[in-house]
């Protein structure tokens, strides 16, 4: 799997190199680079815009963690997301995760206030002590519940958190995908860059390749089972993350989507975390 992906990348890089170099003058190259960045940003903005306006949604997540030996363990959690009001400057969406499984962490809750620039604000609720703890968001690259998803993979990314570069359009299954490279602006991110495949029809995310700080392919995310909710929001049913370095994988299954769910802003405050269920 890893070899195949890498091999294809090498070919693509060679083609791009041959295509650009012999004909383009340096200024043209710079203009092309600027145009690619502009186009990448436009795609990100467009994709973001298509996801906006949902107000709130709730869903359930089941994670199946599989190690190299094939041993599986399960996580179950519920997610609530409150969209940032349109007039909010700098503030992003608020996400709340409540754990049901494994049972020993049942009732533990995790609150994220995303910020468009700079680190997110994060709180953890520990039910044994009934303690709400502000935690460091520098652990963006840390594993989420021992899975192959990092904390930074778990919340919807804000447009401003990356720099973009449009790479190409290519066929992906029956669809055409636009391929964009995005570079995290936050130096605490565990990634040097990500390559993102989104279809040109609806800008649904189909695949992401994550490159670590040494620019080696670390993980691949494959997304499937898209359905459209409340006539406009496309959401996936399954996200499969494979870690190429460790051979471990995590399959994240979404269910019980409820867009426009009845949530209150108070649930997304540190005090509301104490009653998260």
């Amino acid at each position, binding site marked *: 799997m890893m070899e195949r992906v890498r091999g294809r990348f090498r070919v693509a890089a060679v083609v791009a190199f041959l295509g650009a170099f012999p004909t383009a003058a340096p200024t043209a190259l710079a203009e092309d680079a600027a145009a690619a960045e502009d186009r990448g940003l436009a795609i990100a903005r467009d994709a973001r815009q298509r996801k906006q306006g949902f107000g*709130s949604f709730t869903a359930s997540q089941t994670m199946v963690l599989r190690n190299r030996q094939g041993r599986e363990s399960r996580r179950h959690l519920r997610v609530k997301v409150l969209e940032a009001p349109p007039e909010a400057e700098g503030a992003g969406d608020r996400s709340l995760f409540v754990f049901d499984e*494994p049972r*020993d962490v049942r009732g533990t809750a995790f609150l994220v206030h995303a910020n468009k620039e700079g680190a997110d604000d994060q709180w953890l609720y520990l039910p044994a002590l009934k303690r709400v703890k502000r935690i460091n968001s520098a652990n963006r690259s840390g594993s989420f519940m021992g899975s192959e998803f990092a904390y930074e993979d778990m919340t919807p990314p804000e447009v401003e958190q990356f720099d973009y570069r449009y790479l190409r359009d290519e066929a992906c299954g029956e669809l055409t995908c636009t391929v964009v490279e995005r570079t995290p602006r936050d130096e605490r991110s565990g990634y040097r860059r990500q390559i993102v495949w989104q279809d040109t029809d609806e800008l649904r995310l189909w695949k992401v390749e994550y490159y670590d700080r040494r620019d080696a392919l670390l993980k691949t995310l494959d997304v499937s089972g898209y359905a459209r909710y409340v006539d406009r929001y496309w959401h996936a049913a399954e996200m499969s993350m494979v870690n190429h370095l460790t051979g471990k994988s995590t399959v994240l299954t979404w269910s019980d989507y409820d867009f426009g769910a009845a949530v209150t*802003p108070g649930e997304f405050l540190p*005090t509301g975390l104490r009653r998260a269920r």
Partner: protein
Amino acid sequence: MRRILAVAVTAAVLVAASPAAGAAAVFGSFRDLDNATREHHRISMRLGVPLAVVVVRTGRGPLYRIVSTGTPDEAAARALVVRAREAGVPGAWYWAEAPVPEQLPEERVATAPEDPETVPAELEAVEEAPDMQPPRTAPDAREEAVAARPEPTEPPGEPWIAYRSFSGDISLEGRWYPDPAVHPGQRSHASGFVVRPELYLEDRAGRSLTVRPFFRHDAADPRRTHADLHEAYGMAVGQWGASEWELRLGVDRVFWGVTESQHLVDIINQVDLVEHPNEKARLGQLMAHVTLAGNWGAFELFGITGHRDRTFSGRTGRLRLPLLIDRGATTYESGAEEWGLDVAGRYSGTIGAVDVGISVFDGTSREPFLLPAVNGAGTPVLAPHYRRIRQFGLDAQLTTGSWLYKLEAIHRAGAWNLLGREEDYAAFVAGGEYTLYGVFGSGADLGLLAEWNYDGRREWATSRFQNDLFFGTRLALNDEQGTEFIGGVLSDLDHDSHFVSLELSRRLRDNWSLEFETVVLLNVGEADLLYAMRRDSFVGLDLVYSF
């Protein structure tokens, strides 16, 4: 197959919709019609605009959605969405292809749209109700109709409970004290089990009841065998302007603070000292607790009564003083004894990278002063005496980069010092925590902690944290088993004694986990408050089943 049609079940509330698409604002979606009806009424009153409930058929059954009816175009609908959010309906969103509520019953013909591409994927055909009535658009008529609607009756077999959960854990615990006992009668082990179930019930209006009893059986010390009601409270939540109020009535536990070596400002609940000498386990406390919270922070008010006696080891138990504590001889400064009223308040808020809590407590202290006494059998004992105190507390944490900087400070008036004299004092814990992420080339996180504990009374302090330095480490492997190691040394700078604590926890398989712990007391001299417990270092192993 992808067709849409809305059904009118109740004339004014649930309106008919044609397959034609239009702009609307949506204020909420419900699986339950009663909830939708109630919310419809509430939101309609709040916004003062006509609303309707439309039903959409999804793969998982009908969904009742509260929509605007007076929004002819996108701009109007979007404006209403913004207004609704400002008015405290955060879930509002713009629905571009909403089914348009019909104006005349004759036009309510159930037809599928011509072009299936334009139809929301989620929506499927539903049957048209035969007794559909024309929806009314005048707000007055609508309110009237809503008001006239009979209260929803409970469907048979469906109780008032909208959500319930039963969870908890059972653990088998063993503790061994390798050193010979200091006091006569003391055993060298403390083995037993702990049961901690939790029942949670929530009704359709979001009110809830939580019951969480606690029971420990200890084979060595009957005093350590104890039951407690950790939680038994009812809770209601509501909106108040842009803020939210929360009311809790009953027995609950409340935690304040940020530091790790000691929970200094945390005062609402009594320490359950027989549980662990680290003074972190707490007993349930009867109280009324109101919270008002918003983006500005939270203000909390507590009315507390039913003072709890601190728990102490019995004759056969370790970690005790030479004389036994006779809880039957407890006295209070307050004339109302344990039924005096304690009041407390706290403001907490987040200002960028800083989280701050400012608290005040006025009432009977949780910390007993131990008075020499003689019990009925003529044996010398210690009798707990609780003073009335006033305590101001501050807890703050600065979260920046990989560092957490922490501070807890109190000022307490009315308490007795070690000499039994009243002495107002200040105490604090200050320190920091630095975390290294992804150490050893793995996904493990390593935290390094240092905290300084200080009590202005120094040698006359009743707390053993009078001038102590704490160094700790926390290693989380972030593996599937959630393996975690926590270790720390609390060194007394005045007495050169050390309180060493190591904890290791790991999930074995699904519901089972294992916790290993050791507490080592080193170089505890005569002047130290822990002198009577100098040979009570222990090793503990817990096997926990969670459900």
